[in-house]
């Protein structure tokens, strides 16, 4: 526990504490505002739409905020020194080696995915997906005020992505991943000699005992086919759902292109969650954790 307190009070980890506190506080704030607006006929913001002059009504808020931020920053900088460790030494690898805090959610994903997915494809999809939001969200309601009732789906998906997949994976990656990127509970000491005894299996092996590799170490074509069916089958939920529901009003409004983008991004987000579950849940039942769903000579998923 003492070590955990040391880790959370490391100067470089303060932003993560602030992120955690900020995310919770602002979620609560937005939630109360949304509930209040949802109970009214018109949102509070709409009743405050008379114009006020920027000088002084806005400029003074900015001025006070500036003073407050500068005061906090100076205080923070006077009392806490930025870390400066030993000189760079390529021959001495620290264990664990961690990326800067804002990338630790992505580094945590390396437990569940190969680097090309965790380090390249998923970050790219996050960026592209964020950029796509305004063009795929065709719900005209909730523009410029807090609401939940009018945009349940959008808010649930975004909050899940931000609060669960981004913030809590950062917290997990920073505070609970010790030497060898092994998991440690807050009350456990980070033991550098700890060896997690895990025999990874692939999904085909866990479910049907189909070995991924043949005795001569070549990839088993049956296992590869199985993986392809699972992954492509999973992504075909998108087209199948479209065929079933394409006559629905909402699908008509969305159109095929928008639907394809939304369904692909959502299924990928869901896939990340499924892969995390496949990795963590089997160990709780005494089974081996799943490493890959689909193994091919060129890439593994």
């Amino acid at each position: 526990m003492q070590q955990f307190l040391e880790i959370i009070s490391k100067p470089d980890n303060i932003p993560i504490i602030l992120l955690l506190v900020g995310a919770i506080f602002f979620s609560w704030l937005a939630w109360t505002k949304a509930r209040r607006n949802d109970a009214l006929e018109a949102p509070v913001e709409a009743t405050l739409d008379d114009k006020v002059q920027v000088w002084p009504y806005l400029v003074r808020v900015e001025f006070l905020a500036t003073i407050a931020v500068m005061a906090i920053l100076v205080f923070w900088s006077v009392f806490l020194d930025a870390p400066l460790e030993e000189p760079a030494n390529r021959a001495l690898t620290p264990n664990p080696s961690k990326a800067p805090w804002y990338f630790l959610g992505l580094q945590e994903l390396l437990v569940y995915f190969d680097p090309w997915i965790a380090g390249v494809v998923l970050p790219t999809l996050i960026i592209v997906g964020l950029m796509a939001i305004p063009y795929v969200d065709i719900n005209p309601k909730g523009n410029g005020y807090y609401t939940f009732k009018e945009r349940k789906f959008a808010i649930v998906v975004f909050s899940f992505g931000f609060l669960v997949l981004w913030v809590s994976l950062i917290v997990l990656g920073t505070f609970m991943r010790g030497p060898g990127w092994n998991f440690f509970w807050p009350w456990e000491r980070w033991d550098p000699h700890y060896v997690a005894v895990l025999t990874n299996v692939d999904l085909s092996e866990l479910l049907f005992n189909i070995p991924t590799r043949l005795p001569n170490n070549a990839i088993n074509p049956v296992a590869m086919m199985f993986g392809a069916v699972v992954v492509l089958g999973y992504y075909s939920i998108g087209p199948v759902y479209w065929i079933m529901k394409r006559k629905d009003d909402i699908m008509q409004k969305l159109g095929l292109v928008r639907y394809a983008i939304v369904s692909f991004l959502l299924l990928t987000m869901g896939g990340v969650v499924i892969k995390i579950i496949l990795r963590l849940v089997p160990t709780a039942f005494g089974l081996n954790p799943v490493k890959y769903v689909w193994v091919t000579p060129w890439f593994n998923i």
Partner: protein
Amino acid sequence: MALMEKFRKTELYKSIFRHSYQDTQRNRALQIVDNVFLHLHPVRVPRHATNIGFTWGMGGITFLLFLVLTITGVILMFYYRPTAQYAYEDMKYLMNDVPFGPLMRNMHRWAAHAMVLTVMLHMFRVFLTGSYKPPRQFNWVVGVILLVLTLLLSFSGYLLPWDQLAIWAVTVGTNMARATPLLGHEGPFGPELGMRINNDVRFVLLGGTEVGPPTLLRFYVGHCIFLPLIAVIFMAVHFWRVRKDGGISGPESKKNF
């Protein structure tokens, strides 16, 4: 005070301050329009836009932190040489012997962390108020680009102290580039396309096969010149678009509900 009154009537004073400071509607408007910095604002805004509970002030604070980072960053540049030989020693010098050196460096680092945080929270607020909806779709895209630039700025600055923390955090981060599909030597279809450790995308990023002196120089130039320049351009577009898209978002009007 009489002297001040006299001074106010001089050509010099009038050439600098175009209007009197009497509290009139007109002067309040001129205060904004006649000031190059303040005229980023409109003259008048809807009342809810001045409510910090609505805006959280995160966008403005992000900009403030960017200004703090620019100023402290320029000061730090006076004491820092981006070479493997001197970088770490310069850090030690800065932290131990330069007057206010630690304060400048600490402010630079904490403001950088805080900026990453405020960008995220700004984005969260903009999402929750639906402010990316028409006509502001494109400004959200610009905002996402600014988020990426903020992360890149922070990440490139992370290497500059040239200590163990820096070099290994950047090693871990840039190792991902090995695995880039098609363009990395360990990525899917990378080797098939002729990617090797000394010609793939990571090699371009690092200026070598590992994080070394050329990486330090690359990240330094990127951190101090290239990325801030790009960020300033996108910030200009971002702020300009806020105005052009109708100012801060809000519900249309209560009669539409």
